[in-house]
Structures are given as C-alpha cells and as structure tokens.
C-alpha cells in the first residue's frame, strides 16, 4: 500500500515559488491499478515522481508498505527503489549499449541476485512481454513498442511491490499501446500494484480507478 499525506511540491525560480502539488492525500491499496489523469501541467507526473521516490516533496509524507520514506536517507531510497519499485518511462529509458536481456538483468545483478538466477528471471520476464525472440538485440534494433515492452520486463523482473508507469503509451502507435496496456492488465490481474500516469482516456479507463488532478489537487477519483 502507498499513501500520501498533504503532499506538496513547489519549484522555485529565484524567490518566486510555483506550487505544483498543493497537499495531495491519496491512498493506493496493494494490488490496485490506478491511472492518474489530468491536463498538461496539472501535476500528474510530479505526483508520480514523488510517490515513486524519484523526487523530494517540499512537504508532506509518503508511506509505502508502512515505511515512512521521509525518514529514509538517499542511499536507503535508492535501495528501496531497486528492490521494491519498478519503473516504466515514457521514452523507454533502456541503456543503449545493453541488449534487451542485459537491460533487464542489470537491476537484478545489482540487487545481488545470483547471475544464473538473474538471467533466468530476466528470460521469464521478457517472455511475459513477448520478447523472447529479441533477447540479444540492442534497443536501437527494437521498435518503439518492443522497447517499451523490454522496459516493462525490466520493471517487473524483480517482482516489485509497486509498478510506476509514466505515460507508457505516449510515444507508441495504437497497436503497440494496446499491447502495452494488455500487459499492464495482465500484471494487475496477477496482483501487481500499478500506478500509471496517462492523458489518454481509453487507457485510463483500463485501470481500476482514475485519479483526476488539476492545478496540483485531486479533483476526483472515479472507479471503472
């Protein structure tokens, strides 16, 4: 479970403060699949960055599975991200020098998983997303959809408590987007907690809940 309490995030340009998040209270239960939606600049990505510990909130709390992340050091947060969280970025964010398999295996090796086990888990993960025939291809040799699926494989290989996805379909064509969303749906069905930011209504509706944000505040939560 992940919970935010009075979460605020401001950006400063000189002395000018721009409040992007204005006290967000949100609770996501284990196994839930939520979509954060809103117009451009509403603060949806900023909210996800705070919840996924990629950024430091200006004020407020984030509690993940009972851990008050505010009390964690930078090293503890890095370790927490490595072991407990998974990320899917809009632009895939694969390491260009590593093959699909190596991209997936890297975080596992960094966690200390034994090499053969890490490769086994990576293979399974890439199989789940249908990339078993592209294991040894570099990202540049994969299509956008394939790269995003490799990115998902990397995010889920270590069975994270929460999977964060930032506009995962924004750079994909319809067919690839549907394939990616199908994977998310299947993962959710298997019990995976997913927090996804999207501006595409049809894909938002594939989540359990839609959290609508505007001007840094939650303006509504809809159940699908």
């Amino acid at each position: 479970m992940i919970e935010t309490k009075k979460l605020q995030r401001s950006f400063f340009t000189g002395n000018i403060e721009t409040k992007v998040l204005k006290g967000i209270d949100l609770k996501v239960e284990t196994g839930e699949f939520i979509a954060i939606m809103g117009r451009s600049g509403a603060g949806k990505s900023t909210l996800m960055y705070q919840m996924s510990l990629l950024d430091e909130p200006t004020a407020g709390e984030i509690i993940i599975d009972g851990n008050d992340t505010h009390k964690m050091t930078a090293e503890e947060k890095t370790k927490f991200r490595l072991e407990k969280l998974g990320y899917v970025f809009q632009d895939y964010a694969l390491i260009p020098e590593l093959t699909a398999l190596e991209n997936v295996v890297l975080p596992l090796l960094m966690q200390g998983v034994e090499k053969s086990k890490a490769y086994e888990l990576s293979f399974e993960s890439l199989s789940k997303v249908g990339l078993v025939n592209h294991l040894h291809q570099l990202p540049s040799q994969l299509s956008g959809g394939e790269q995003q699926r490799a990115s998902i494989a990397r995010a889920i290989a270590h069975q994270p408590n929460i999977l964060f996805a930032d506009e995962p379909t924004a750079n994909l064509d319809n067919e690839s987007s549907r394939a990616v969303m199908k994977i998310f749906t299947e993962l959710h069905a298997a019990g995976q907690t997913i927090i996804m930011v999207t501006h595409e209504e049809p894909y938002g509706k594939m989540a359990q809940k839609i959290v609508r944000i505007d001007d840094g505040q939650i303006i509504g939560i809809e159940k699908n």
Partner: protein
Amino acid sequence: MAVRQIRRSSIWTNVLITFVMVLTFLNLVVVSGILVGLIQGAVDAVRTHYISDVIISTPTSKNYIENSPAVIEILKKDSRIDSFSARYLKAGTVEANYKAQVKTTDKTDMASASFAGIDPIAEDKVADISRFIVEGSFLTPLDYDQVVVGSYLLKRYMPVDSPGFSTLSSDVRPGTKIRINVGGVQREVTVKGIIKSKLDEINMRVFMVDSQFRNLVGRTDYNVNEISIKLKPGNDPVRVRDDLLVQGVGQVAKVQTFTDAEPKFIKDMIQTFAILGDIFSSIGLVVAAITIFIVIFINAITRRKFIGILKGIGISGEAIEVSYVMQSFFYAITGSIIGLLLVYAVLQPFIAAHPIDFPFSDGILVAPISSTLFRIALLIISTVIAGYVPARMIVRKNTLDSILGRN
C-alpha cells in the same frame, strides 16, 4: 556495464583514446629514457672505447706508472682479464704545411695535441677504436713514422676559431706529411689515418705505435701512463680493482673501476637529465589526465539521462562511478600494454642497434623496468582519478533532473 560501453562504443573512439594513452605512455617512458640515454650513450662510449672496465693510471705526483712492466706481468697472470692496452702519453704539438714557412719567425700551422703510443692490436681489442677511422686506415704494429690524427686537430672537422684552441687549418689528409714535437724532439711523420669519434679523448690525440713512441721520447724503461683493462664477461671490476690493490699496484698507480673513474659532472648530468625527463613526463601525465577527463566528462554528460535512469531504477551512484573508473582503467592499461610492447620489443632493441646520432653521443633508450612500472602506476592512478571526477560530477546531479534533462 563498463565492458559493454567499451565494446559497443565506436571503435574509432576506442582507438583514439588508446592511441592517446600510448602516446602518453611513450612520453612518460621514452622522453626521459632518451634524455638519460643521451648521457648514458656518452658514458657507455667512454667505457667501451677508452676506460674499459678497470683503468690503471699515473698518480698525479708522477709522470708515468713506475715499474709498469711488473704491473703488466700481474695483469698477464690474471685469468679474469680478457685484454689490456698500455698507453704512453705525452703532450706536444703537430705542425702542418711547415715547408711553406718563409722566415723562421713566421708562425706555422700548428696545434696542441696529446700523443698516445699504443700497441695497435691490443688497443683495438680493448677499445675497438679502429672503427672510428674516417679517412685512411688504422695503425699496424709495423708502422714506422706513421700516425693517426684525431679529427679535433683538423679545422675541417673542428671548425672553431678560438685563441685557446688551435687546429690545423691546412688540408691534412692520409699521406700528408706533418711534423710532431714531443718532449723536445721533432720528427716528420706521415698521416696514415684520421680518427673521428664522439670521445674527446680520442679526437684530440695523435696515435702512433708504442715502440716508436718510446724511441721518440726516450722511454726505454717501458713505463706507461695508463692501462685500460677489459674483463671477461661476468667478472666484477670492483673485485679485480681490489685484488690489484692488494698486489701492490696501488703503490705505483691509481687503480679505478670505470665507475670510480666516471667524472662527477657526468653523474650530475645523468641526474639532471633524469629530472628534466621527469618534468616532461609530468606534463605528459597532466595532458593524459586532462584528455581522459574530457573524454569521460563528454561521455558522462551525453549519457546524463541514462545515468539518471540507472539511478532512478535503483542502481547506486557508486556502481555507476565504478563503471566509468573501469573504463578509464581499461584505457590506461591497454595504452600501457601497447606502450610496453613498443618500448621493450621495438624501440629499445632498435635504438640499441641503431643509436640516435647526437652530436656528442650515440643516444640509447634507457628504460629500467622498475622505473617504467612506477610510471605505469602513475599513469593509471592519474587516469583513474581523471575518469572518476567527471563521473562523480554527473552522478551527483539530481536523479529526476538527469532523467528529464533539466539543468
């Protein structure tokens, strides 16, 4: 990751960086090696072509080595000695074109010289000087009234015009008659050859056969001025010197190993050139460090987004820094290995076989392995630091800013 980055980056980038490291390595090892080798070449030449392993010379208070025949007998009995050359030395003058003198008060073409009476065969066995004959030929034991003239005594070889240093300006060549004046005796002799080496001791001498020299100066007691001794391989000059001293040679002569006889200024020069080499090497080291810094910095800054992603997915900053340090290490090691091969398999043997023709020495490449290893260690340390610093600078940036490309 470092391995993958190197393997999958442009081959030309890798070649270029490795090339820079090889050049840096060569700069570190070869520049100082040549500078030291420049002097070492001169030192080796003095040893090979003049002093040899041990030298027995006239004490400063005497005109020659007294009882030289007894000393020579001791040398003949020592099985460690390969060969020796006893030399008679005396200062004098040489004159050329003296027949053109109209009045006795006219000044002739004259130069001061050091005369050396030698056994040509023994001298050549010890000092191998016949190789330096540039005109005519070397002496043979039966030569009479023939001399070999050092090139510094001839203006065409030594074109200096100094009041303190005179040379023969006439066209002296093999076959030319010259007049020698030694110990108050004057004699007309024929130039048999002209000798030119990089040793002043040879270039400023007039060589003649020892028997004729003895007759010329009346040295009927066979007392010589110096004896250069060449040892058989594997024999220690210090032990031979000490044994000669024990046998009493020290009472009539000065007995020195080559190292003892090496002038202090030569030792100082070697040290000076070593310091100069170190200064040049240090500059090379800084250049290498800056090169690696730039390469790694550009690499890291263009990959800032991916570094951010790696941090984002939980890879620790230290692990990312290590991957960049490993890259730097790889380039330093590869450059050093190629440099080592170049130095020890190509340059050193080649330069030893074909010394660099410096004006005053045949320069060799001096690169003791211990000093080379020390320089490799310096190169690796500076390269690793140069790789670590930019990686650290980029890794320390905010993760999200790196991912989003924000400044």
